[in-house]
């Protein structure tokens, strides 16, 4: 086939795929295209790959066109090559939003680097878009780097609806005018040569294209296709491998850019999963047997995976009739001897609070995972936010002390569950593990965990209880009491959510009520005594200490590195235990002129006319740390529903450092 086979007769900007020497095209290009495109018109062959240390690519489509699968596969292949990767999913709120709509942009960003990558980065270098409307969504959100390369499906240029043709033409023109480098690609047409429904095959074609663009091993691409379609028959795998191959070939023939991001395969085995899969693997490895849940975004994918695999290690996922029942079911199972986990997101976490209080009062071990999303109410179900910290700390009524852990990386999602189960059973406490929508869907390789039997729960204690032992025989120093599990001879007692004495008898006496409160609270202190002060990232002293928690870790540390490279004296501290807080924080803070938290939740804006120090609402962690350390901790936060970018943190830190300089 000749290249003109796919070239629309009225092609306006076929850019780099232009057939050599087509006078109409060339003249058009010369008249309107920026420098980059003009160069692109020349076909470069042989080893044309430009070496980069990192690159950010997005694949954007209507929902259901498989952009995410394409991107995840690309990331998996790059990871297998030994590249650092981080994927960020771009998810519309609806399952099937209207096609070709700005708000319906569904896709994925993949940041590929030579080194380990810890976050999604700033702006995108290269975008593959399946239509111009979803692309516009990303452009308007400011997600594209100036002059970024856009590979755009060109089928719309010939659409039978003249409005679509016009819209497409206008958008392309405007993008070009704005300095983007637009490459039109006949994805649909090329795929139709191989499959009857190109809409379903395009993503694998694009995967092939991107394998070529990033000089990735096509053999690994074939393996990846075989892996994702492994459950389907051989014909399906073959068809998709043909699409992959065709995409690679098409890019080889028609794209004038190619990159190579040097990779170094790790000397140790790595696993590549997203945060929710890591959580689920953590459940598998923690020795827990029962997960009770109710479907909720963005937590559900963890339960999907667990439902698939948990039974293979003798576990059960119980989909309860509602969030409250899921939590109560887990409490029942834990009470009966097998510490259970319930996985949810914000609204479900709110609903569980009364049951969580029961577990606190009765001292039943329980692991609650909250994959945070935007709130309050239904909020932004598919978007990230760190909005539930205070609900986790102070949720449920009365004094309900519980342990709160925040996972800060994908790897941490895995280990946090194991830690949580251990603490829950050692201290007979509720342990809340906070993750969020960005960790839930982000992929990043980490060293393959080496299984340890120590992770597992001991068998249910069925030994007779010593004569005269009491079900709540609180230790005067630690508040710990040995729990009696049904089946243990002589351990019979009635557990109650009412205030109770050491015999678990309902008690209304003032002293007894305080005794229970006292010992339940002491357990937190007992745990706190075992915590290690977290390390400072960067120099131990300086002008500013940035304090974070949860998924912002990668972005904060990258920002700190950039700021230090500018000569600024900035370090960071990341907290994994939010309750109890480790010791030594105040001492660390004392070595910095200024301390500021960076968080993805709402805090009042100082520039607002009526906001002042008397009414300013601080971010969650800042609120907690100010109370704990009495240090005048500042905060900077945003709640845009997206991961915070390193650049935004850099800007915020620079601004606050300048403010301070001006103030003195």
């Amino acid at each position, binding site marked *: 086939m000749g290249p003109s086979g796919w070239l629309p007769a009225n092609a306006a900007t076929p850019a780099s795929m232009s057939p050599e020497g087509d006078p109409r095209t060339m003249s058009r290009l010369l008249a309107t295209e920026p420098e980059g495109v003009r160069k692109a018109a020349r076909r470069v062959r042989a080893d044309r790959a430009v070496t980069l240390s990192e690159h950010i690519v997005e694949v954007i489509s209507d929902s259901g066109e498989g952009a995410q699968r394409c991107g995840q596969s690309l990331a998996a292949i790059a990871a297998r090559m030994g590249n650092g990767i981080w994927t960020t999913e771009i998810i519309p709120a609806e399952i099937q939003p209207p096609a070709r709509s700005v708000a319906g942009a569904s896709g994925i960003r993949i940041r590929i680097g030579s080194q380990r990558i810890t976050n999604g980065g700033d702006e995108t270098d290269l975008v593959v878009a399946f239509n111009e409307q979803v692309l516009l969504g990303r452009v308007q959100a400011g997600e594209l780097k100036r002059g970024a390369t856009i590979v755009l499906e060109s089928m719309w240029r010939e659409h039978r609806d003249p409005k679509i043709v016009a819209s497409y033409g206008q958008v392309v023109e405007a993008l070009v005018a704005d300095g983007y480098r637009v490459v039109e690609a006949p994805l649909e047409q090329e795929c139709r040569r191989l499959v009857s429904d190109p809409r379903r095959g395009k993503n694998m074609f694009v995967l092939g294209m991107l394998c070529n663009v990033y000089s990735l091993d096509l053999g690994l691409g074939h393996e990846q296709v075989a892996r994702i379609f492994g459950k389907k028959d051989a014909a399906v795998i073959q068809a998709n491998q043909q699409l992959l191959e065709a995409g690679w070939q098409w890019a080889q023939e028609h794209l004038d850019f190619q990159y190579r991001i040097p990779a170094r395969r790790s000397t140790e085995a790595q696993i590549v*999963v997203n945060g929710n899969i890591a959580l689920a693997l953590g459940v598998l490895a923690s020795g827990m*047997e029962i997960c009770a849940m109710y479907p909720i975004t963005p937590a559900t994918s963890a339960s999907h995976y667990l439902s698939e695999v948990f039974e*293979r290690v*003798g576990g*059960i996922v119980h989909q309860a009739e509602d969030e409250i029942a899921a939590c109560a079911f887990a409490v*029942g199972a834990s009470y009966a001897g*097998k510490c259970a986990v319930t996985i949810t997101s914000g609204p479900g976490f709110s609903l569980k609070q009364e049951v969580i209080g029961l577990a606190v009062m009765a001292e039943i071990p329980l692991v609650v995972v909250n994959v945070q999303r935007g709130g309050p109410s239904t909020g932004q179900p598919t978007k990230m936010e760190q909005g539930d910290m205070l609900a986790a700390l102070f949720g449920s009524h009365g004094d309900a002390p519980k342990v709160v852990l925040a996972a800060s990386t994908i790897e941490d999602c895995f280990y946090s569950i194991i830690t949580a189960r251990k603490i829950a059973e050692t201290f007979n406490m509720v342990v809340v593990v906070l993750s969020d929508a960005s960790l839930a869907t982000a992929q990043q390789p980490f060293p393959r965990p080496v299984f340890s039997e120590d992770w597992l729960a001991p068998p249910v204690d069925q030994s007779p209880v010593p004569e005269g032992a009491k079900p709540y025989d609180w230790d005067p120093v630690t508040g710990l009491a040995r729990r009696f599990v049904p089946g243990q001879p002589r351990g019979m007692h009635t*557990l109650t959510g009412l205030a109770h004495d050491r015999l678990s008898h309902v008690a209304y006496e003032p002293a007894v009520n305080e005794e229970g409160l006292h010992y339940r609270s002491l357990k937190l202190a007992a745990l706190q005594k075992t915590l290690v002060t977290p390390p400072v990232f960067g120099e131990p002293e300086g002008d500013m200490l940035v304090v974070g928690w949860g998924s912002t870790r990668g972005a904060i540390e990258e920002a700190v590195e950039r700021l230090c490279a500018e000569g600024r004296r900035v370090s960071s501290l990341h907290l994994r235990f939010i309750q109890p807080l480790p010791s030594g924080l105040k001492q660390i803070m004392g070595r910095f002129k200024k301390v500021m938290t960076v968080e993805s939740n709402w805090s009042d804006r100082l520039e607002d006319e009526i906001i002042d120090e008397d009414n300013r609402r601080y971010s969650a962690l800042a609120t907690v740390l100010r109370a704990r350390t009495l240090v005048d901790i500042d905060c900077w936060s945003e709640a845009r529903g997206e991961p915070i970018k390193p650049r935004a943190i850099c800007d915020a830190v620079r601004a606050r450092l300048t403010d301070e300089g001006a103030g003195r």
Partner: protein
Amino acid sequence: MTMSAGQCLIRLSEEHHTLEDYQGGVPRWCVGCGDNAILAAVQRLCRDEELRPDRTVFVSGIGCSSRLPHYMKTYGFHGIHGRAFPVAEGIRMARPDLHVFVSTGDGDCCSIGAGHWIHAVRYNMNMTVMLHDNHVYGLTKKQASPTSPAGLKSNTTPRGSELAALNPLSVTLGVQNVSFVAQAVDWVPEVMYDIIAAAFRHRGFSFVRIIQRCPEYLPRMFEPWLHDPQKTLLLTHPDGIQLNPELAQTYRNHREHDPSDIDRAREIASLEDPIPVGILYRNPNVPCYEDLRHPAPMRTPEFIRAGFERELDRVTVWPEDDAGAGLAERASG
């Protein structure tokens, strides 16, 4: 009956329990409260069935009824309002070796916990459920409950409640997977005992609604029934409840009802006067959720490790030198 020496030894080593082995604290219910009759019946049942107190759990929610576990000398779980069923389900799933009983009230089960009730019927997990239905909230001092008759004057319905009462029997019989539904009344304790015993012996979610008097807030509610035995309809059947001659003499209003007949059961369930007493429905063939869900193998550390490594193998990037073979494969090969 003569026993062999071996049988004698076995009998000797078996534990024998007396009523005292099941009697916990002194009940603090009002004098004349139907809860006392229910407690006496279950304590007797535990003794007669020789249930090990350390392997028996009474679960409850909140309300007068839900104090029952405190008066048993078994394990008890006095939880929060409306959530007895999911707690009991979790216990049952984790520990199928335990006997699980649930005490719940008309507010606990039919109002705040109604969602769980419907699904508990559907799960059909093996537990014996006693709905202590006194038609009123007692612990919070006289508010109308879902089973209060229309017109009931209470603290929240001072001009009389507007809505017709919910019928717990009809609701339960309308749910998929229903496997055991019975009704007892506190003024015929012998039959109440027989019904709870039958419920205990049924494998599945055995739902017994027990109509009971609240001497404090609805003292006259059931007086007509107490004065006229004809207003109590006893359901008898060889597969259901059989009456002793004395009782049959007192309560002459009997009807033979086959508990396998769900259509008849639904008709009987809707009777309000006379009040039907007996086993309305029983189907031993409905599967229990815990049986459907329980994976068989022993969870040894080795078994968990193998499953875990298999999952990791699917997502592992191996260093160049040993690409290919997964840990699970290596372990097994």
